Protein backbone atom coordinates (compact mmCIF):
# COMPACT_ATOMS: atom_id res chain seq x y z
CA UNK A 1 0.00 0.00 0.00
CA UNK A 2 2.87 2.36 0.71
CA UNK A 3 3.99 2.51 -2.92
CA UNK A 4 0.62 3.55 -4.32
CA UNK A 5 1.22 7.19 -5.10
CA UNK A 6 -2.37 7.91 -6.11
CA UNK A 7 -3.83 6.87 -2.76
CA UNK A 8 -1.15 8.73 -0.84
CA UNK A 9 -1.54 11.94 -2.81
CA UNK A 10 -5.33 11.94 -2.75
CA UNK A 11 -5.53 11.23 0.97
CA UNK A 12 -2.88 13.85 1.68
CA UNK A 13 -5.14 16.30 -0.13
CA UNK A 14 -8.39 15.07 1.41
CA UNK A 15 -7.44 14.67 5.07
CA UNK A 16 -7.21 18.42 5.92
CA UNK A 17 -10.58 19.09 4.33
CA UNK A 18 -12.19 16.20 6.18
CA UNK A 19 -10.77 17.47 9.46
CA UNK A 20 -11.91 21.03 8.77
CA UNK A 21 -15.37 19.71 7.97
CA UNK A 22 -15.37 17.69 11.20
CA UNK A 23 -14.47 20.76 13.24
CA UNK A 24 -17.18 22.70 11.40
CA UNK A 25 -19.75 20.05 12.28
CA UNK A 26 -18.70 20.11 15.94
CA UNK A 27 -18.68 23.90 16.24
CA UNK A 28 -21.91 24.24 14.29
CA UNK A 29 -23.76 22.03 16.76
CA UNK A 30 -25.68 24.80 18.49
CA UNK A 31 -26.89 26.73 15.48
CA UNK A 32 -27.52 24.16 12.77
CA UNK A 33 -27.29 20.56 11.84
CA UNK A 34 -24.31 19.01 13.59
CA UNK A 35 -23.04 17.89 16.93
CA UNK A 36 -20.25 16.28 18.83
CA UNK A 37 -20.98 12.65 17.97
CA UNK A 38 -21.16 13.24 14.23
CA UNK A 39 -18.14 15.54 14.12
CA UNK A 40 -16.07 13.20 16.25
CA UNK A 41 -16.81 10.28 13.98
CA UNK A 42 -15.95 12.33 10.87
CA UNK A 43 -12.67 13.34 12.52
CA UNK A 44 -11.95 9.69 13.29
CA UNK A 45 -12.72 8.87 9.64
CA UNK A 46 -9.87 11.14 8.58
CA UNK A 47 -7.56 9.14 10.85
CA UNK A 48 -8.84 5.93 9.28
CA UNK A 49 -8.05 7.33 5.84
CA UNK A 50 -4.55 8.20 7.04
CA UNK A 51 -4.09 4.68 8.39
CA UNK A 52 -5.24 3.19 5.09
CA UNK A 53 -2.94 5.40 3.06
CA UNK A 54 0.20 5.68 5.18
CA UNK A 55 0.06 2.64 7.44
CA UNK A 56 -0.54 2.36 11.16
CA UNK A 57 3.04 3.05 12.22
CA UNK A 58 3.14 6.45 10.56
CA UNK A 59 -0.07 7.59 12.21
CA UNK A 60 0.94 6.14 15.57
CA UNK A 61 4.08 8.24 15.43
CA UNK A 62 1.92 11.38 15.46
CA UNK A 63 -0.30 10.29 18.33
CA UNK A 64 0.26 7.07 20.22
CA UNK A 65 -2.01 4.90 22.32
CA UNK A 66 -1.39 6.78 25.53
CA UNK A 67 -2.11 10.10 23.85
CA UNK A 68 -5.35 8.88 22.37
CA UNK A 69 -6.47 7.50 25.73
CA UNK A 70 -5.64 10.81 27.37
CA UNK A 71 -7.68 12.64 24.73
CA UNK A 72 -10.63 10.37 25.41
CA UNK A 73 -10.44 11.04 29.13
CA UNK A 74 -10.03 14.78 28.52
CA UNK A 75 -13.21 14.86 26.43
CA UNK A 76 -15.30 13.26 29.15
CA UNK A 77 -13.65 15.48 31.76
CA UNK A 78 -14.67 18.60 29.83
CA UNK A 79 -18.28 17.43 29.81
CA UNK A 80 -18.40 16.32 33.44
CA UNK A 81 -16.35 19.33 34.53
CA UNK A 82 -18.96 21.70 33.13
CA UNK A 83 -21.56 19.66 34.98
CA UNK A 84 -19.64 20.04 38.24
CA UNK A 85 -19.12 23.73 37.48
CA UNK A 86 -22.90 24.09 37.49
CA UNK A 87 -22.92 22.25 40.82
CA UNK A 88 -20.35 24.76 42.09
CA UNK A 89 -22.57 27.67 41.03
CA UNK A 90 -25.42 26.46 43.26
CA UNK A 91 -27.31 24.73 40.47
CA UNK A 92 -28.09 21.15 39.68
CA UNK A 93 -25.65 18.88 37.85
CA UNK A 94 -25.32 20.11 34.23
CA UNK A 95 -27.71 23.03 34.87
CA UNK A 96 -26.11 25.57 32.53
CA UNK A 97 -28.69 28.23 33.44
CA UNK A 98 -27.19 28.42 36.94
CA UNK A 99 -23.73 29.22 35.52
CA UNK A 100 -25.26 31.83 33.23
CA UNK A 101 -27.14 33.42 36.15
CA UNK A 102 -24.10 33.57 38.45
CA UNK A 103 -21.54 34.80 35.91
CA UNK A 104 -23.99 37.17 34.23
CA UNK A 105 -22.64 36.65 30.72
CA UNK A 106 -25.39 36.66 28.07
CA UNK A 107 -25.69 33.68 25.72
CA UNK A 108 -23.41 31.66 27.99
CA UNK A 109 -25.88 28.78 27.79
CA UNK A 110 -25.18 28.29 24.09
CA UNK A 111 -21.43 28.68 24.60
CA UNK A 112 -21.47 26.01 27.30
CA UNK A 113 -23.42 23.71 24.99
CA UNK A 114 -20.73 24.30 22.36
CA UNK A 115 -18.03 23.40 24.91
CA UNK A 116 -19.93 20.26 25.85
CA UNK A 117 -20.22 19.34 22.18
CA UNK A 118 -16.48 19.84 21.80
CA UNK A 119 -15.90 17.50 24.73
CA UNK A 120 -18.20 14.91 23.18
CA UNK A 121 -16.36 15.28 19.87
CA UNK A 122 -12.93 14.80 21.44
CA UNK A 123 -14.06 11.77 23.42
CA UNK A 124 -15.80 10.10 20.48
CA UNK A 125 -12.88 10.79 18.13
CA UNK A 126 -10.37 9.40 20.59
CA UNK A 127 -12.43 6.29 21.33
CA UNK A 128 -12.91 5.55 17.63
CA UNK A 129 -9.22 6.06 16.80
CA UNK A 130 -8.25 3.89 19.76
CA UNK A 131 -10.48 1.08 18.47
CA UNK A 132 -9.01 1.46 14.98
CA UNK A 133 -5.47 1.30 16.42
CA UNK A 134 -6.28 -1.89 18.30
CA UNK A 135 -7.98 -3.55 15.34
CA UNK A 136 -5.51 -2.52 12.63
CA UNK A 137 -2.31 -3.21 14.54
CA UNK A 138 -1.03 -6.68 15.24
CA UNK A 139 -0.71 -5.84 18.93
CA UNK A 140 3.07 -5.85 19.06
CA UNK A 141 3.65 -2.19 18.36
CA UNK A 142 1.56 -0.93 21.25
CA UNK A 143 3.34 1.82 23.12
Amino acid at each position, binding site marked *: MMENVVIRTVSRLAVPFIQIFALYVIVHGASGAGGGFQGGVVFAASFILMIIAFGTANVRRRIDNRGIMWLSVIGITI*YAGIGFLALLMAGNFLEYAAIEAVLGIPHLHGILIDLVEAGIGIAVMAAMVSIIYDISGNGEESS
Partner: protein
Amino acid sequence: MKVKALIAVLFIGIILFWAVEDMPAFGDPDAPATQYTGQLYVDAVLPDIGIDNIVTAILASYRGFDTLGEVVVIFTAGISVALLLRRGGRL
Protein backbone atom coordinates in the same frame (compact mmCIF):
# COMPACT_ATOMS: atom_id res chain seq x y z
CA MET B 1 -40.02 -26.45 8.03
CA LYS B 2 -39.33 -23.96 5.26
CA VAL B 3 -43.01 -23.88 4.37
CA LYS B 4 -43.93 -23.10 7.97
CA ALA B 5 -41.37 -20.31 8.07
CA LEU B 6 -42.66 -18.90 4.79
CA ILE B 7 -46.22 -18.98 6.09
CA ALA B 8 -45.17 -17.21 9.30
CA VAL B 9 -43.28 -14.53 7.39
CA LEU B 10 -46.17 -13.97 5.00
CA PHE B 11 -48.66 -13.82 7.88
CA ILE B 12 -46.62 -11.24 9.82
CA GLY B 13 -45.89 -9.30 6.65
CA ILE B 14 -49.58 -9.07 5.77
CA ILE B 15 -50.34 -7.88 9.30
CA LEU B 16 -47.62 -5.22 9.08
CA PHE B 17 -48.80 -3.99 5.68
CA TRP B 18 -52.33 -3.94 7.06
CA ALA B 19 -51.12 -1.77 9.96
CA VAL B 20 -49.42 0.65 7.57
CA GLU B 21 -52.86 1.78 6.47
CA ASP B 22 -53.52 3.23 9.92
CA MET B 23 -50.28 5.19 10.14
CA PRO B 24 -50.40 8.95 9.65
CA ALA B 25 -49.12 10.38 6.38
CA PHE B 26 -45.46 11.35 6.12
CA GLY B 27 -44.92 14.81 7.61
CA ASP B 28 -48.49 15.07 8.87
CA PRO B 29 -48.62 17.90 11.44
CA ASP B 30 -51.58 16.26 13.16
CA ALA B 31 -49.79 12.96 13.70
CA PRO B 32 -49.92 11.63 17.27
CA ALA B 33 -46.13 11.68 17.53
CA THR B 34 -46.06 15.47 17.07
CA GLN B 35 -49.02 16.16 19.33
CA TYR B 36 -47.64 15.41 22.74
CA THR B 37 -44.36 17.20 23.56
CA GLY B 38 -43.10 18.32 20.14
CA GLN B 39 -44.81 21.70 20.09
CA LEU B 40 -43.84 22.16 23.75
CA TYR B 41 -40.14 21.89 22.91
CA VAL B 42 -40.50 24.08 19.80
CA ASP B 43 -42.03 26.81 21.91
CA ALA B 44 -39.77 26.44 24.94
CA VAL B 45 -36.28 26.03 23.46
CA LEU B 46 -35.62 29.60 22.35
CA PRO B 47 -36.68 31.38 25.58
CA ASP B 48 -35.17 28.65 27.75
CA ILE B 49 -31.80 28.13 26.10
CA GLY B 50 -31.40 30.65 23.32
CA ILE B 51 -29.91 28.44 20.61
CA ASP B 52 -31.48 27.65 17.27
CA ASN B 53 -30.95 23.91 17.04
CA ILE B 54 -33.75 22.19 18.93
CA VAL B 55 -32.14 18.77 18.64
CA THR B 56 -28.91 19.97 20.22
CA ALA B 57 -30.84 21.82 22.90
CA ILE B 58 -32.69 18.66 23.89
CA LEU B 59 -29.57 16.51 23.56
CA ALA B 60 -27.13 18.67 25.49
CA SER B 61 -29.31 20.64 27.86
CA TYR B 62 -32.63 19.00 28.66
CA ARG B 63 -31.18 15.51 28.40
CA GLY B 64 -27.62 16.42 29.36
CA PHE B 65 -27.16 13.66 31.89
CA ASP B 66 -28.33 11.07 29.39
CA THR B 67 -25.84 12.33 26.82
CA LEU B 68 -23.04 12.14 29.41
CA GLY B 69 -23.97 8.51 29.85
CA GLU B 70 -23.81 7.96 26.09
CA VAL B 71 -20.31 9.41 25.92
CA VAL B 72 -19.27 7.17 28.82
CA VAL B 73 -20.69 4.19 26.89
CA ILE B 74 -18.51 4.99 23.87
CA PHE B 75 -15.50 5.51 26.16
CA THR B 76 -16.22 2.15 27.77
CA ALA B 77 -16.32 0.53 24.33
CA GLY B 78 -12.88 1.96 23.55
CA ILE B 79 -11.50 0.79 26.89
CA SER B 80 -12.98 -2.68 26.40
CA VAL B 81 -11.49 -3.10 22.93
CA ALA B 82 -8.13 -1.89 24.25
CA LEU B 83 -8.22 -4.34 27.14
CA LEU B 84 -9.26 -7.26 24.93
CA LEU B 85 -7.08 -6.75 21.86
CA ARG B 86 -4.04 -4.85 23.04
CA ARG B 87 -1.25 -7.22 23.96
CA GLY B 88 1.19 -5.88 26.52
CA GLY B 89 1.92 -2.26 27.16
CA ARG B 90 -0.02 0.05 29.38
CA LEU B 91 -3.45 1.46 28.77
